[in-house]
């Protein structure tokens, strides 16, 4: 690639390099159309220990507790959920920064949790990560060129020594930074520019899959849009598969083909962006969506707000049955006894509506929570606040009852579990 190749040309050139490298990495047959990544029953438990000399395990932080999803080639899967629900832990297991406690991660049909040595290295090259924090994830003592080119030290086959400088400059160009900045240090860049550096580094090995953990969360609105557009463009032009983790539901919708909603270490609902945002059937998804402030003051009066009571239980002490039941306004006896599976709920199995998607709830039902341009004039009557199921929360001011239905979720779990399941 020569110096005149700038902007979009640079990207096109890059993608040729990319496909060559990928061909070399492909060792076994793989049927087109299969998911490129299949995650099944993924678990990460961190042991809780007591004692200094004789460590005794007294429990476990169930950071990730049985996660299933597929990622198709060229697809963007968004993962949303509140702080501590296990999003980053999933990401770290996918890129081999953390070993799973259980479950499988199949990349092109092969379980990578069992791989080691050369085979593992080849896989790792194809799954790269972009981190959240552009301020701390870059080594302040390394030049931008060294940072972006660092992966070549571990995978020298991708770029022989002589060609590295040119490669790094191409990458800078691809992410919209001046290639002449190659010798600068991270502190000489703004937050948005640093995030671009992180992205360039993620692209260095021409991966097939990028796992992006909150890549724009630390950025200002105007700069955030620049980076989101960049990611969009790179995905299309490099044919990347994206796992995009964020807590901003609007950005996730913007960038994702499908979206998975996590709560306390599990995916509770997953589907296309339309299925999740316009036809959510899990109460947690509904509460999450209804809580997002919408940048439109006229939506204020018409919106029904689901205000959840109480806090997320500790992942070291997960409620029995449905893990959302301590905050769920629809919870019943069955929810305490029986774990709801992530599948199409029976009520929707025969329907042809977008409500027919995986949702881990015994009492799944549709509820329109995202205010729509068209719907705003006539707020939905059918599921209105008059329905008895919605009484524990109110639309604008929360009731003064305070504590959630079960005031000390952690403590009564065990007793609940015993007689019920035993």
């Amino acid at each position, binding site marked *: 690639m020569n110096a005149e190749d700038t902007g979009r040309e640079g990207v096109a050139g890059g993608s040729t390099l990319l496909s060559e490298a990928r061909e070399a990495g492909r060792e076994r047959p793989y049927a087109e159309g299969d998911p490129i990544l299949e995650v099944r029953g993924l678990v990460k438990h961190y042991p809780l220990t007591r004692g200094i000399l004789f460590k005794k395990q007294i429990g476990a932080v169930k950071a990730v507790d049985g996660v299933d999803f597929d990622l198709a080639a060229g697809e963007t899967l968004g993962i949303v959920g509140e702080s501590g629900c296990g999003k980053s832990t999933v990401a770290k297991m996918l890129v081999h920064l953390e070993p799973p406690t259980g479950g499988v991660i199949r990349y092109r049909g092969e379980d990578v949790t069992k791989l080691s040595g050369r085979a593992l290295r080849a896989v790792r090259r194809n799954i790269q990560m972009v981190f959240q924090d552009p301020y701390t994830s870059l080594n302040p003592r390394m030049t931008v060129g060294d940072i972006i080119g660092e992966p070549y030290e571990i995978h020298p086959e991708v770029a022989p020594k002589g060609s590295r400088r040119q490669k790094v400059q191409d990458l800078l160009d691809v992410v919209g930074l001046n290639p002449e900045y190659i010798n600068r240090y991270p502190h000489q860049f703004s937050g948005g520019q640093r995030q671009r550096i992180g992205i360039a580094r993620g692209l260095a090995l021409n991966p097939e899959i990028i796992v992006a953990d909150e890549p724009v969360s630390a950025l200002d609105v105007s700069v955030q*849009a620049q980076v989101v557009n960049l990611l969009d463009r790179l995905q299309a032009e490099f044919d990347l598969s994206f796992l995009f983790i964020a807590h901003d539901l609007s950005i996730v919708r913007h960038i994702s083909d499908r979206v998975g909603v996590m709560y306390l270490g599990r995916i509770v609902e997953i589907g296309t962006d339309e299925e999740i945002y316009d036809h959510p059937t899990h109460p947690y998804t509904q509460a999450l969506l209804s809580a997002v*402030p919408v940048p439109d003051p*006229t939506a204020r009066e018409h919106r029904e707000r689901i205000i959840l009571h109480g806090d997320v239980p500790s992942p070291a002490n997960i409620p029995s049955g449905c893990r959302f039941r301590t905050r769920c306004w629809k919870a019943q006896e069955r929810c305490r006894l029986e774990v709801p599976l992530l599948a199409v709920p029976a009520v929707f199995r025969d329907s042809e509506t977008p409500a027919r998607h995986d949702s881990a709830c015994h009492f799944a039902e549709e509820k329109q929570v*995202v205010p729509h341009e068209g719907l705003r004039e006539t707020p939905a009557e059918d599921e209105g606040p008059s329905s008895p199921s919605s009484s524990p929360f109110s639309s604008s001011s929360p009731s003064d009852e305070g504590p959630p239905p079960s005031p000390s979720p952690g403590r009564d779990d065990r007793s609940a579990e015993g007689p019920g399941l035993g």
Partner: protein
Amino acid sequence: MLLEVRDLHVEFHTRDGVAKAVNGVNYSVAEGETLAVLGESGSGKSVTAQAIMGILDMPPGKIRGGEIFFRDRDLLKLKPEERRRIRGQEMAMIFQDALSSLNPVLSVGQQLGEMFVVHRGMSRGDAKVKAIELMDRVRIPAARQRVGDFPHQFSGGMRQRIMIAMAMALEPSLIIADEPTTALDVTVQAQVMDLLAELQRELNMGLILITHDLGVVADVADRIAVMYAGRIVETSPVHEIYKAPAHPYTKGLLRSIPRLDQKGQELYAVKGLPPNLLHIPPGCAFHPRCPMAQAVCRTDVPPLYTVDEERRSACHFWKETLDER
């Protein structure tokens, strides 16, 4: 008017030079009103708030000019004792990071009670009763049992509610909330904003809500002041500004956010980088990034033009901006 900031200037003397953080801010808040102050990181939102509260770091900070009228008295002309009294009783501030603003070695009850002991001369026993009352009021479950707990024993959302309780304790007439929910999850954010709005209504307080979240603003604000490079570039009632912004920067911000209710195409992105406060561009500070900039923008600082009775815009071409939808 409860509070009126007029032509406030604040600068910081740093090793690299003089950072002009606040360059002529004008805004006002009435009783019972919520003013949202919006703007990117570094635009001077917090520094303005610190100047109002009288908690600016001086040095390196320095107030170069302006007036801050609170109930018709210029705060900048008052004696330190008088300011301290006002700060304790008549205005209060809520910070983004509750954990670092609460004292880690005192129980929550002691910190809440302290307000009543110091400012109201209450006995410790009475103050504790008051503290429990306040915790109840901000919906801390089992307040009586938890009054002796320390800040780190509460969740992020609860700590933020305790901060709100502290701010409300003496029923001030003005509250400044600096990004009160930025560090919280959306469902917890909804709980906290709800509480804040409810208490504000009850006490008829003026509220200055500092944020960069255009969604939160649309949800709770009566009026908006948009800051850029230490200046107010637009003020307006909330409905009008979302319908038709009168400043290109506001317009860019509104267009650059993804929407929850639609998939959308490429996002509009405000080009370029936020300004360097050591070298603020001449003329209109936004001109290097502005799609509507003309020659005059590079030389003449735009005054706050009157758009209508309730709206102001610091853009030479506010008319064109309004018209060009």
